[in-house]
């Protein structure tokens, strides 16, 4: 790296490009793995086998799927707003990809170690809803508009509980910088924020009920943020025939898919960094270090992604009014109580 820096301006540009391209490489690899994993997990939940023919246990199937999507005709309906229609998938993906820049993958790798890391992620990932609204509107299809409107209402509502839950973690750790938040939790599983953080014992024990509830609520809210079951109303295939992406085909459709998978990882990453110790090892200094950090971080995130998949293939879907009810009348009041409780304990 130093050799590159000696090259002057061009060297630093090269470093910047490589540095910022790492997340997209990761997202693509991760999407392939998760695509395969989701189908396999779904199949095993449903007592069947899923892909078995393409490669060993169907491992080449994701590649085949992507090839198929690449070959598909890219149709745009005549009534669509062509510019917005083309733009929408990229806006959705951009929101997700932008947020990856503040994710602390390891103690040495974070795209941009900004002090307002969490805030940045919450703000940038809100772009996703703009893209979805754009796609639904530009499609000029009544079902798509339904999906887009639902999506807008849903994401805006669920941003409140998400932000409040994040606030609680920030109150405990005292920082918005995700690297600092992670370092705060170093030293083993008992120091994670979900278990009260590395605070004096009495304080810690008092905190645990609040942090556990907050963690669960953040996980539920993150399901809604990424439109996964039981909150998959915007794309409810049995009601809205895929909702906002009904009219999309080929690579544009794949972009939506990619963004959804990347988003699943993103919300898990935020949860992991704030509550599950980020890249720190659960065994204190054992198996810790930059590379192990990467392993732990991605491992924890994939565990949460697995949970999301598990829930998706088990539960039915909520109705619009029930979705709003859950957000405003259940999750948000609980979080206010938690904020009050945590604040009180921290002051004592």
């Amino acid at each position, binding site marked *: 790296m130093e050799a590159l820096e000696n090259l002057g301006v061009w060297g630093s540009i090269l470093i910047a490009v490589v540095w910022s391209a790492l997340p997209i490489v990761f997202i693509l690899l991760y999407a392939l793995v998760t695509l395969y994993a989701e189908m396999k997990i*779904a199949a095993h*939940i*449903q*007592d*069947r086998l899923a892909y078995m023919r393409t490669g060993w246990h169907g491992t080449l199937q994701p590649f085949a799927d992507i090839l198929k999507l690449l070959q598909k005709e890219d149709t745009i309906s005549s009534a669509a707003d062509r510019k917005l229609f083309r733009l929408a998938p990229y806006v959705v993906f951009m929101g997700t990809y932008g947020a990856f820049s503040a994710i602390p993958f390891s103690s040495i790798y974070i795209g941009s170690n900004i002090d307002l890391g969490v805030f940045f992620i919450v703000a940038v990932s809100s772009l996703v809803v703009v893209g979805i609204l754009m796609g639904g509107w530009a499609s000029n299809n*009544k*079902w798509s508009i*339904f999906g887009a409107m639902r999506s807008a209402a849903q994401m805006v509502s669920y941003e409140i509980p998400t932000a409040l839950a994040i606030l609680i973690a920030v109150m405990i750790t005292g920082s918005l910088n995700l690297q600092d938040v992670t370092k705060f939790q170093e030293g083993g599983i008992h120091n994670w924020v979900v278990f009260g953080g590395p605070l004096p014992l009495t304080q810690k024990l008092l905190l645990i009920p609040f942090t556990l509830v907050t963690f669960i609520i953040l996980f539920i809210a993150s399901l809604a943020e990424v439109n996964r*079951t*039981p909150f*998959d*109303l915007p794309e*409810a*295939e*049995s*009601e809205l*025939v895929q909702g906002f992406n009904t009219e999309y085909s080929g690579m544009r459709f794949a972009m939506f898919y990619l963004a959804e998978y990347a988003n699943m990882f993103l919300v898990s990453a935020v949860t992991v960094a704030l509550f599950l110790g980020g890249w720190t090892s659960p065994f204190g200094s054992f198996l810790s270090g930059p590379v192990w950090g990467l392993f732990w971080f991605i491992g924890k995130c994939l565990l949460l992604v697995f949970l999301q998949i598990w829930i998706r*293939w*088990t*539960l*039915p*879907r*909520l*109705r*619009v*009014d*029930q979705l709003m009810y859950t957000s405003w009348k259940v999750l948000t009041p609980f979080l206010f109580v938690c904020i009050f409780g945590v604040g009180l304990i921290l002051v004592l």
Partner: protein
Amino acid sequence: MNGSKTLLTSYVSQPGEIKTSSGKTLRTDEMIINMGPQHPSTHGVLRLEIVVDGEIIVDVIPHIGYLHRCFEKHAEHMTNYQQVIPYADRMDYVAAMNMEQGYAVAMERMLKIEVPERVEYIRVIMAELQRIASHLVAVGTFGIDAGAFTPFLYAFHDRERILDLFEMTCGARLLYNYVWVGGLSHDLPPQFIDKAKEFCKYYRPRIKEFNDLLTYNEIFVKRTANVGVLPKDVAINYACSGPMLRASGVNWDLRRDDPYSVYDRFEWEPQVGKGEMGTVGDTWDRHIVRMREIEQSVNIIEQALAGIPEGNVQAAIPKRIRPERGEIYARTEAPRGEIGYYIVSDGSTTPFRVKARSPAFVNLSVLPEISRGAMLADLVLIAAGVDIVLGEVDR
């Protein structure tokens, strides 16, 4: 009628004008959307024209006829009364055995013939197996419409075993041509009884598993309870039948109330909706009635398998059936309700007229009545609760 209105007051639509804070008036309007004929939740080629106010349904107009295959006209042009049976199969293709049985019962009453006891037992076993298979499709797709995909595959896994039994018996898995006028096309294969007993033993615990997975799931209950309430009087006025009618609290089952075959020899009970999770006659009641009927069917099958007599499977009837001049209406209990055949004979070898009264067609007519004021997402569940098979709606 009043029941549904009071329950859903919070949904009552008010299109009109909205005053903004700056004093301007914004006009809101209803939107007409078209659901189907190609839509994953219309269970075939049903087209629903929906008038919505936001997500709230103001009116629903079902348009049918996309799968019309002239069953009744075809039946008049057969060379033989037996040849109608494959067409009857294709009406309710999810419950073909029951369709055949209805026709056979009607014809036998017209000809005033008694079929051998073994035939009646086999018909009961087949009809009840088919009822389970059909209800499994109903509850499985109900899960899909609620957004849960897994229960569907659980249901189809078990349905597969029933279809295997049918395949073993008559070689077909969906459209059997097995129940003939005066008997059956084949006798049971020798290993059938053991396999069917094995199935009953395997299947009983699976009912509980399915209930745990879907029926009593909190989200599912929230989605279906108090949704699409069909009060008793409305159900009777619209001539609903089958699980749809029973879920509304009317204890009416043709197997008991207009007896045919040997159902009176077995211990079983028609299941009625009790409104455990909400109101009597809501969508959840329709689901649970189907689940409980599955259990009752397993009971009947087990008893029938234990008591099946030996004997011939063909009554002595001529190759060319030539009924006397006259008419008959006979009705039997299909999984979706009352399947009635009205057959007119002019004394020749072909029917002069065959009219089928199909249950889902009649049940579907109540759909607009129970979905007004519900939300778009509810409509999908209400339609799934009616459990339509378009082959039989359109005939």
